């Protein structure tokens, strides 16, 4: 308990210290990387752990971002109240989509969320003064909260806290009865139902919780660029998020983090070789991962570790034990 507490404090200290060391451009990249990681973590819980394919994660990111901007600056609500109302909006939208589509076996959720994602972009574009149309909303800044004006590295700290809060909540859920129920449903819904798991309810809760987490990340995003516009929340980024989780290693929290970091940084590395066509490279990698290493980067790391262990000069006893373990497994 104490050790895990120390770990959390250390992680927070490192992430926060980094925030104060970076310049303007790096701060921008750093904030967005943190948000991508938060999104990948919650999407991994929905997709990798609960086994639901949904294409609406970025839509909820957008719902959160637009909700807080509209509620704060057009409805004139104070920020904490606007944040709560934004969460309520996310929950409501998630329920409307998830209730009908998770009742049925099959991939209706994928379809319904795909349609929702398309519709969201259109609604933003047609929203007139409320959503600012295709240009989006801009020229606003974070209002004072209880008399404090948060800006610069201090705001990065807010994002770090959102990320760590997301991770803590997801880990907690994952290690609880709820997380095991989610995994059971992913692996075999009928068996889970037979064990007394209410499949539909667990699915809906998992969808609503993770989508709302995406919405919360979106709320913090709204004050990163101080502008929200439709293209950010489209399907392009949604596919990128899916690639992050799959290439990182779906079902693993560490995999989601690694996938997000690698794919976020990859365009900068690939730029000299493929120009702006890094998405094509990602697509090829995604297919390759599914075909050859379904556990993604995590699977490759595990293999590498196992290989390193095998390279150590084996004693006779060690070898025999290993051989017997193998026999037990097969």
């Amino acid at each position, binding site marked *: 308990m104490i050790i895990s507490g120390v770990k959390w404090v250390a992680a927070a200290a490192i992430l926060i210290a980094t925030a104060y060391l970076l310049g303007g451009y790096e701060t921008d990249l750093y904030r967005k990387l943190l948000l991508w990681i938060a999104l990948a973590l919650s999407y991994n819980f929905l997709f990798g752990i609960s*086994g639901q*394919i949904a294409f609406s994660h970025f839509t909820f990111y957008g719902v959160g971002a637009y909700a807080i901007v509209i509620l704060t600056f057009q409805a004139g609500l104070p920020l904490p109240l606007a944040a709560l109302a934004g969460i309520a909006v996310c929950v409501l939208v998630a329920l*409307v*989509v998830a209730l*009908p*589509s998770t*009742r*049925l076996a099959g*991939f*209706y959720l*994928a*379809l*319904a969320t*795909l*349609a*929702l994602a*398309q*519709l969201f972009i*259109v*609604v933003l*574009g*047609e929203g007139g003064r409320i959503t600012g149309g295709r240009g989006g909303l801009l020229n606003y800044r974070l209002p004072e909260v209880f008399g404090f004006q948060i800006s610069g590295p201090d705001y990065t700290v807010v994002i770090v806290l959102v990320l760590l809060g997301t991770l803590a909540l997801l880990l907690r859920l994952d290690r609880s009865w709820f997380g095991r129920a989610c995994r059971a449903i992913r692996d075999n819904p009928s068996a889970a139902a037979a064990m007394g798991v209410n499949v539909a309810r667990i699915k809906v809760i998992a969808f609503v919780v993770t989508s709302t987490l995406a919405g919360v990340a979106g709320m913090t995003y709204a004050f990163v660029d101080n502008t929200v516009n439709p293209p950010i929340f489209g*399907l392009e980024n949604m*596919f990128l998020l*899916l*690639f992050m989780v*799959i290439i990182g290693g779906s079902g693993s929290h560490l995999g989601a983090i690694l996938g997000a970091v690698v794919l976020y940084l990859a365009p900068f590395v690939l730029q000299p070789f493929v120009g702006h*066509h890094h*998405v*094509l490279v*990602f*697509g*090829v990698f*995604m*297919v390759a991962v*599914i*075909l050859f290493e*379904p556990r993604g980067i995590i699977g490759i790391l595990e293999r590498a570790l196992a290989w390193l262990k095998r390279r150590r000069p084996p004693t006779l006893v060690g070898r025999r034990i290993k051989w017997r373990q193998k026999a037990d497994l097969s």
Partner: protein
Amino acid sequence: MSDILELTVNATATGCIYALVALAYLLILRPTGIINFAIGEWAMAGAFISVAALTAIVLPAISLPYPLAAIVILVIMAAIGWATERVAVRPLLRRKAAILSPILALLGVLVIMRELGALVFGVDPLPSPPPFGFRRMTLGPFAGTPQNFYIIASTLLVFLGAWLFFERTIWGRAFEAVAIDRRAAALMGVNLNRVTALAFAAGAALAGFAGLLTSAQTSAHYMMGLPLAIQGFTALVIGGVGRVEGALLGGLVIAFAEQFATRYTPIPSGLTLGVPLLLLILFLFVRPSGLLPAKEGR
């Protein structure tokens, strides 16, 4: 009144495109249980290939006569579908991976195809010439472009062919058998690999044909795939996942709902994209088996 009739022709033609996409889904979904989201991208590929084959825009040296171009498109698309199955689906089926894996692999294929489309054909919309020109045509009380009537006629032919295939040929029976019970069908001597390969080839050819038809209406564009994929699948859910006629009916229902909503209600035209979503959610709530429920195994 003539307004309504003209809109009817238009909506029917659009509905036919959706129906063809829905049928392409159905051909793959029935025997394999795989929802192939790349079908919209296959339609995009068909549209781009028709622009390349019919006009001098992409390949200046080539402009084929329409029937020849259509055959070329069908052959190329069938080859693409077959290759996709070979590379991205069959290894997973052989490994007995969860059905989610090929669906995700096909999502990867979707992104690859779209990026290739943008890379090879550019990001501007490219129109293909309609085979019967642009004049206005009347057929009894109905009026529209020849392309509209051509789309409707050829779609009806395709659906007639599909219906005959499923009801009258041994291959169609084999598809049905695999759809009802893969294992039992395999034990009865149906070659599962061949059925799956044929399903992908036929699905891709069909989606490519939809692309050919729609490229003369709305131009070929690298982003055209997903909307078509969404409309097509919604059509399938509304019509009923089990039957060929369901795809046609569902496509028509969506297109009519969309176009009449644009014309006669005060919602902005962009928002009509929401009509399929509303229909979809409504149907999932009220009638998830679709309008025409699947036939029981006979």
